[in-house]
């Protein structure tokens, strides 16, 4: 059976990303219209739209396995692409697709299950001699046990959710007094996020780099890697800026880590695209962290330097085709940086800032790629993540990529919500970033504030405030500002008034 029609079990930029490749491959696509985003941009990329706006259930359709299967069957889709997030790493969903003769574009349910369960993944890694941080042998059931094991390993330790990922259910503990509280919060958070309160403990590697390897495997036992991604720039385990390759690796270390990544993938007979995450310490020791059994948000940086379309590879692999390239065919060329532009207020602790995007314009230079599900008039809804766009910039080397990134960031125009743009403008000027010496502690430790403004920006803003004041007060022949009377003015009205002169 060949893939003829794909149900996109996702939304936003990744839905568009998948549909773009499907179109090139002449495969039809079905997107799902929801009540939360009935006018979303991703819908315009689909060949067919399944209208699910009548569905008012609390669970988003993208998390509703039964519903998705029935939509696939009803629309005659013989394949499903889960994207990332939602059901992208649900072994049960993958199995359900198989049971219903729907091709799941991703790895086998068995591989998803084994890598999804961090304890099983740990045991597999140990068995295959993959370097790992010291840790508990199994899940930990109570605070006393947690304290005992942590004493044995030595603080600091990290508590992780057995079924976790994406930073949720994770807590770093530096002394035994903190253990009880941290154990309880981690376990509670794990239960809420993953329906599984079990947690385990690992030695916490201080200030490492987060390096991950992109894997491609087919259903005939061939597995290769497409080099690494540097994802150390993160906040609370949420990645903000990624690059490929990493300046921390030379070809020796790349080969060593890459072959380890392949080895752990082979242990679960992995096929499709996957990512093996490592921590790299300052002595260039690396430790296996986890494997993500899905396409990742940051996959474009790998595509930019290898030339491979990872979605196309996923579809071909799901079709049963063998990989056309061998490890030696993979050549890393140039440098790519991705900035995740989110609707977040970097001046208020990265608080999500949902809202309507009033105007939106992205650079169109040849070195820029933009993956987005947003256009002017779109809304960032608080039920979903806060991503507005991924800005991917390329250069012939790191220096040029950074230079291009600087220019591209100044050409991004987003109005309506606050964004992480000022943060990226700061990062690409930071010395530790330029040197490449940054670690996962970069955001918390190397930065004093989270935004960059050029010399005159504040002064220009002050000029505008003064201009508004003059407009409101002085021109009416009176300077007697009414300090007692609190008066709110609608920004909309104010805008109107200013634009009139």
């Amino acid at each position, binding site marked *: 059976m060949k893939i003829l029609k794909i149900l996109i079990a996702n939304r936003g930029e990744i839905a568009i990303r998948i549909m773009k490749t499907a179109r090139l491959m002449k495969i039809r696509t079905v997107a799902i219209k929801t009540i939360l985003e009935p006018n979303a941009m991703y819908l315009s990329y689909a060949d067919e739209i399944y209208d699910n706006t009548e569905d008012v259930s609390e669970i988003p359709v993208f998390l509703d396995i039964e519903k998705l299967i029935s939509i696939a069957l009803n629309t005659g889709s013989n394949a499903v692409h889960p994207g990332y997030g939602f059901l992208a790493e649900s072994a049960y969903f993958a199995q359900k697709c198989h049971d219903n003769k729907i091709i799941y574009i991703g790895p086998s349910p068995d591989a998803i299950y084994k890598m999804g369960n961090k304890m099983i993944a740990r045991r597999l890694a140990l068995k295959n001699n993959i370097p790992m941080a010291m840790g508990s042998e199994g899940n930990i059931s109570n605070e006393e046990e947690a304290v005992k094991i942590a004493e044995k390993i030595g603080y600091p330790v990290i508590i992780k959710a057995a079924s976790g990922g994406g930073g949720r259910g994770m807590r770093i503990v530096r002394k035994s007094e903190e253990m009880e509280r941290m154990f309880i*919060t981690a376990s509670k958070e794990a239960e809420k996020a993953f329906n599984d309160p079990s947690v385990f403990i690992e030695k916490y590697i201080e200030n490492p780099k987060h390096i991950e390897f992109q894997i491609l495997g087919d259903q005939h036992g061939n597995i290769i890697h497409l080099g690494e991604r540097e994802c150390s720039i993160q906040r609370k385990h949420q990645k903000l800026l990624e690059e490929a390759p990493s300046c921390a690796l030379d070809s020796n270390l790349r080969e060593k880590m890459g072959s380890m990544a392949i080895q752990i993938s082979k242990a679960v007979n992995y096929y499709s695209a996957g990512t093996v995450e490592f921590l790299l310490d300052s002595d260039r020791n690396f430790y296996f962290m986890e494997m993500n059994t899905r396409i990742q948000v940051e996959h474009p940086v790998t595509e930019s330097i290898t030339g491979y379309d990872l979605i196309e590879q996923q579809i071909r692999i799901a079709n049963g085709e063998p990989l056309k390239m061998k490890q030696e065919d993979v050549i890393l060329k140039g440098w790519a940086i991705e900035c995740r532009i989110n609707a977040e207020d970097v001046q208020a602790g990265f608080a999500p800032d949902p809202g309507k995007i*009033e105007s939106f314009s992205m650079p169109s230079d040849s070195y820029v790629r933009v993956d987005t599900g947003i256009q002017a008039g779109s809304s960032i809804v608080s039920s979903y993540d806060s991503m507005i766009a991924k800005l991917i910039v390329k250069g012939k080397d790191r220096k040029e990529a950074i230079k291009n990134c600087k220019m591209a960031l100044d050409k991004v125009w987003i109005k309506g919500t606050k964004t992480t743009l000022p943060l990226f403008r700061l990062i690409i000027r930071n010395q530790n970033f330029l040197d490449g010496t940054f670690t996962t502690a970069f955001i918390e430790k190397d930065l004093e504030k989270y935004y960059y403004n050029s010399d005159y920006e504040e002064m*220009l*803003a*002050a000029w*505008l405030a003064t201009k508004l004041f003059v407009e409101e007060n002085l021109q009416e022949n009176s*300077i007697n*500002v009414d300090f007692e009377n609190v008066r709110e*003015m609608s*920004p909309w009205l104010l805008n109107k008034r200013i634009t009139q002169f």
Partner: protein
Amino acid sequence: MNEKLKIDKLYALSSENKKFSFKLPLKNKIRIGKRDYIVQLRSDEKLGMYILWKNRKYPVEVVRSRQNKYEILFNDISYTFTVETPFSLQRLKVIRSGKGRSEQESVKAPMPGKIIDVLVREGATVLRGEPVVILEAMKMQNEIQSPVNGTVIRVNAKANTNVMKEDVLVEIKVE
């Protein structure tokens, strides 16, 4: 005599107490060193409101205005200014010199969300940076921290309740 005649300058004071002064009547020119640069406030359908300065367009938005206080979003960064006349600035100086800083701090919700956990009780002493409330928003749990060292005098936040942005969660008496 009309007071207006006496005003020849306005000051925009930033929240960090930076002072920017502008001569009246306000011109579309700003002097940097020995040169004047033209600054223009413009607007069009596609970009909305923007400022044109040295051949570059900067997005601007007036987020809030109340009395003489303005919150401006300039190139994705928020700035808050109070605009003062020479007289009101003088008055402000007198007021400020007579009074210390506020003795009470409110911990407000930085975003709408759901309270997951309240970590302090009334009467508890807290240190700056200590988490007081866990707030879940957009699927992420956020620790809301105390901005000051002090004593908790009031706890408004309740676990499993929803809060709006700017809702006061905890009030702290500053030490």
